[in-house]
């Protein structure tokens, strides 16, 4: 039985993880908005749901977490650091050539199952994992986090059809529904709503919850249907840049590269919620 954390403890851990994330938004920067939106989901999954620890990273009986959008990797690295799977001292190597910590996941960082960055890939890769677990009759849980912008990719919908056809009910996709893609609100570019109905029509079990509410996440994950032949998608309602009011839900704060002074102010803002006066230019990478 997995040892779990209380909601209060999870909230404390997620603040620590956010600190790690914010510290990566300098010296070249990172995809801050998308990392902050899925931080609570990743913290919840590692601490209270998935059987993944420092001791079982190569064990075929472990559970799996895949980051399909990939640019949310600071949230993963922050969580792995808090768990002790990744040495905290390595986080300062972000974007340094002496390590493998950069804008997308690399398998040379302990705890990373597979690289990503090209959108629309890891749904099918995690389906391969899920299929093999079915073949071996093992009860691993396989979770893949998808971005909402990523749902533009045709390979996601191709995979959604096949996952349902192959009855991969050991597969859980979590959509980090932060309502933005690179430059624009999703609904202003390629509207994806009604998203629940789309997945339902593809034969999936669909659930929705607040992706920043640990109670809600716990309720959903603890009551998922078992063995009904349908893959599960959880549409997690999130806020891009969650935790930093000065960048929350802003289309122009996707990729962020701040000065050290701004980083210090943002770390204060994380606790005080007093908006920082950000002067670094907004970056559009795409």
């Amino acid at each position: 039985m997995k040892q779990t954390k209380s909601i209060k403890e999870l909230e404390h851990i997620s603040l620590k993880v956010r600190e790690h994330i914010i510290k990566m938004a300098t010296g070249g920067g990172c995809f801050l908005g998308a990392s902050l939106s899925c931080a609570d989901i990743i913290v919840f999954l590692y601490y209270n749901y998935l059987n993944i620890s420092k001791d079982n990273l190569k064990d075929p009986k472990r559970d799996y977490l895949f980051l399909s959008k990939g640019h949310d990797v600071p949230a993963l690295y922050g969580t792995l650091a808090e768990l002790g799977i990744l040495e905290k001292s390595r986080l300062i190597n972000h974007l340094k050539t002496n390590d493998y910590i950069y804008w997308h996941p690399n398998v040379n960082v302990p705890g990373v199952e597979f690289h990503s960055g090209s959108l629309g890939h890891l749904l099918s890769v995690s389906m391969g994992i899920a299929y093999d677990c079915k073949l071996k009759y093992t009860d691993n849980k396989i979770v893949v986090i998808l971005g909402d912008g990523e749902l533009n990719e045709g390979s996601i919908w191709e995979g959604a059809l096949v996952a349902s056809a192959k009855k991969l009910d050991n597969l859980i996709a979590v959509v980090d529904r932060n309502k933005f893609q690179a430059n624009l609100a999703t609904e202003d570019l390629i509207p994806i709503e009604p998203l629940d109905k789309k997945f339902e029509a593809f034969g999936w079990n669909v659930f929705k919850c607040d992706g920043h509410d640990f109670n809600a996440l716990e309720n959903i994950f603890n009551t998922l249907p078992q063995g009904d032949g349908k893959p599960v998608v959880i549409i997690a309602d999130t806020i891009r840049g969650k935790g930093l009011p000065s960048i929350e839900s802003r289309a122009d704060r996707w990729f962020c590269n701040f000065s050290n002074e701004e980083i210090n102010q943002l770390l204060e803002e994380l606790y005080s919620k007093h908006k920082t006066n950000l002067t670094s230019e907004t970056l559009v990478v795409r």
Partner: protein
Amino acid sequence: MNYEQLLLDLLQNDQRYVVLTAENRASIRNLPNVIQDRFIDTGIAEQTMIGMAAGLALRGRIPIVHALAAFLTMRAFEFIRTDIGIANLPVKLIGAVPGFLSDGNGPAHQAIEDISIMRGIPGMNIFCPADEEDMLLGLQKILPYNSPFYIRYNNSKPGIKHSNFEIGKAEVLSSGEITILTYGILLNEALKAKKILESAGKSVGIVNIRTIKPFDKGTILNLCTDSKLVVTLEDHFLTGGLFSVLSELLVLENLNCKVFPLALNSWFKPAMLNDVMEFERFTGKAIADKILKEIES
């Protein structure tokens, strides 16, 4: 023994193997009933098939995936490059109807740039068997091999008895003043061309390249330095295939030899295979004529 029987033997003796197909069942119709859940038909979804193959390989499986060569290598290219290539997973990619073998289908189905794009992936290997016997000899070594491999599926009737297969070794059938380097179905045409050229008083070396990557550099370089003319013969675009591989090698080795490429410059006329070869002038007779003309010029 045919391809399907080879797979069946392997699958029954080794649980690591799984077979995937993007609804391309022509060569594996009888497998589903026997191997059941280890036969995974993803439907017409090449990208998903490759992604799943990567996931299965991460769990220790050796996936053997099937699709028409054009759609396998091109529709799913970025999945092959990113999920199989970067991770160097031992997935075996079986491309059906490559080169001239797509006969009447037309340009959409013509995989004649497949070698070019597959060899651009670091760690990817390529096998172009001359016929069914050659393919079965090769696959026995290639399927268990711990690296990704692209195979140009070819179950045509063997014209000769092949020698032992080794990854990275070409099959040298003869040597002479003219050396024809080739692969796939054109080996048979090269052998026909040899007879015609011999009756014109020329001695002809014939090389079945087999694995174009890894390329048998030592053997080929020796043959090049001993030949007056080296012909590269392939059902592939001129760019990126055997001619390119050889040219790169000669430049790197600072060697000068006379190379005459016979390859495609554009999509070929869709028709039944023999008519394609006639029309495109890739029959043994047409090849011999082109070589004689080249020598005389």
